[in-house]
Each structure stands twice: as C-alpha cells, then as structure tokens.
C-alpha cells in the first residue's frame, strides 16, 4: 500500500509537465482517427435520407417482392455507413476488419437452416393441427 502511494507521489511533478506537453501538442497534432467533421455530417444526412426512405416503404404500403427488397437494401446501406464511417472500420487494420466482419456473415447459414426448419414445422401444423372444417 505505502509503496504504491510513494510511487504516485513521485510521479506528481512529471504529471504536470505532461499536462503542458499535452496542451501544447494538442493544438498542432492529434493522435488517433482524424477525419473532417464534414464527413460525419454527410453520413448523418445520408442516414436520415435512408431512414426516411425505409419509413416511406411502410407509409405508402408497398407490397410484393419490392417491399422486402427495398427494406433490405436500405438496411444494408445504413448498416454499412455506420460500421464503415462512424465505427471507423474503413480505416482499421485489415486483420481486425476481417476478424470482426466475417463471422456475422456465417449467421446466414443459421438463417438458411431455420428457414427450412420453420417451413417443415409449418407444414406439419397445417397437415395435423388444422382446425376441422
């Protein structure tokens, strides 16, 4: 315990030097992800436009194959913008990007399995549990 306290106290002077260094360097150079604010505002605007579009799909009651295709299109575009720009995945090291982005794609296999499974369940329900007519 006492050791730690001494350690922290010993660091106090250097801490203050650090502050001045940080404040001095902060104005001129910044670490980490740096992109113009305008980029975020443009993406923000596009997300608003895409959300409005997907809401209008429901508002105008579009039906048939067009409905799921439009919903999926706007969904994928919105998700892509958020992950690529807001979460900075477009600028991350490729080893991380692939490690994170590939596994969720495999969920599609699970989707396919469950589509077959629910079709089968639905068939059984129609065949054996339909109310007598």
């Amino acid at each position, binding site marked *: 315990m006492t050791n730690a306290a001494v350690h922290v106290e010993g660091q106090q002077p250097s801490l203050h030097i650090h502050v001045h260094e*940080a404040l001095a360097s902060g104005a001129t150079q910044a670490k980490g992800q740096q992109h113009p604010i305008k980029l975020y505002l443009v993406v*923000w605007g596009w997300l608003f436009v895409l959300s409005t579009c997907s809401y209008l799909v*429901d508002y105008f009651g579009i039906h048939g194959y067009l409905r799921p295709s439009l*919903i999926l299109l706007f969904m994928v575009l919105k998700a892509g913008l958020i*992950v690529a720009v807001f979460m*900075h995945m477009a600028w991350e090291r490729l080893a991380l990007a692939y490690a994170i982005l590939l596994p*969720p794609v495999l969920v599609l296999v699970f989707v396919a399995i469950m589509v077959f499974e629910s079709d089968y369940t639905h068939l059984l329900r129609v065949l054996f549990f339909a109310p007598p007519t």
Partner: protein
Amino acid sequence: MAETALTNTATSITRPAGWRGIAADWSSDQRAFKNVSWGKAMMWIFLLSDTFIFSCFLLSYMTARMSTTVPWPNPSEVFALTIGDRKIPLILIAIMTFILISSSGTMAMAVNFGYRRDRTKTAALMLATAAFGATFVGMQAFEWTKLIMEGVRPWGNPWGAPQFGSSFFMITGFHGTHVTIGVIFLIAIARKVWRGDFDVERRGFFTSRRGYYEIVEITGLYWHFVDLVWVFIFAFFYLW
C-alpha cells in the same frame, strides 16, 4: 512497464496488402491486431459476441413468425399513433429511429473532438448523445405502456399469433437495456473527459491504469453498435 508494452500501438509493422497481410498478422507471434490497442480490439470482440446474441433473438422471431399458422399482427397498424384525428402508421418508431441516428451523429463528432483534445466540446457532445439515448428509452417505455394497456402479453395479444408479444418484449427489451447501459457508460466517460482525466493521464480508480482519449472512441463503438442493432430491428420487426 507492462502497461506501455500493452498499449503502445505507435509502431505499425508494414505488411503486404490484402489476404497476404492478414495471414502475416495472424501467423506472427503474440498479437494479431498489430496497431490496434487492446481496448479497442476487446470492445470489437465483445460487440461481435453481442451480434450473435441479437442474431439469435431475430432468428427465433423469424422462426416463430414463419412457422405459425395464425396470422401475424400487422406492425404497421399495431404501432400506429393517432395524432390530431389522423392515424399515422409507425410514426413513433420512425421518430425513435431518427433520435437514435442523431445520437450516433453527435457521438461520432465527440470522438473527433476527443482526439483533438477539445475537452469541453467532447464532454458536451457525449452528454447530448446520452440525452438522445435517454429520450429513446423514454419513448420505448411509452410504447411498452401503450401495448400493455391494449392487452399485449408475452403469451398472447388481441390481434393474432401469440408469439408476437414474446418476440416484441424480448427483442426491444434487450435493445432498450443496451441503450440504458450505453447512457450510463456515456455519462461516466463524459465526467472523466470534463474533469480532464485524459489530459493529465490520471489513473482510473478501478484499473489504476492511465486513461487516454481513445476511451471516447471505444465508448462510441458501443454506442454505434446499439444504433446498428436498431437498424436491423427496425427493418425486420417493424417494417417486414
């Protein structure tokens, strides 16, 4: 000293582009994500596991909806609100979507100002994000109240397939919990930014490690993920 070794990501080893680079990173010793700090990599891995949790919820919803012989309640009508004397479909959900997107916008800008070491703007934008998030949770509470008053229960509802209630409460409830945790996380980090913890590299009371402005970006990753999940819930549960 171990701390420096773990968080020093300044040296980035050059690799060939594409798959060869990925193979070189993964087959090297010790760390696969060379210039990515452990904090950011761990948040991404947590978000990946959370993706699987939400995938399972949406998949079980899909299975229930596809296999039922009873018609599924029409979400366009269930979530309609009467404003004035017009019934507008899904309007509350649309407003909630715009609020969450706006919160993502302010969060992205907070990360940017954080790396520029602009303490005041970063904290203010993070608190704005938290306020948007709290508004979202409030509107969700209103939506839940409305549906419960109309007789929606996890085991049944007045309009059709009984699985509608359980899917709805499970999916939106879990998402709302994530938003709530995000608001708490944002306020906690905004307080540290405001106090200048990351300018003086003050040690955290829990981890006794020095904090960096990168924590703003890591908080942002979590927050954008919450928005990302809502994109999928909005498409699959409310619009489909």
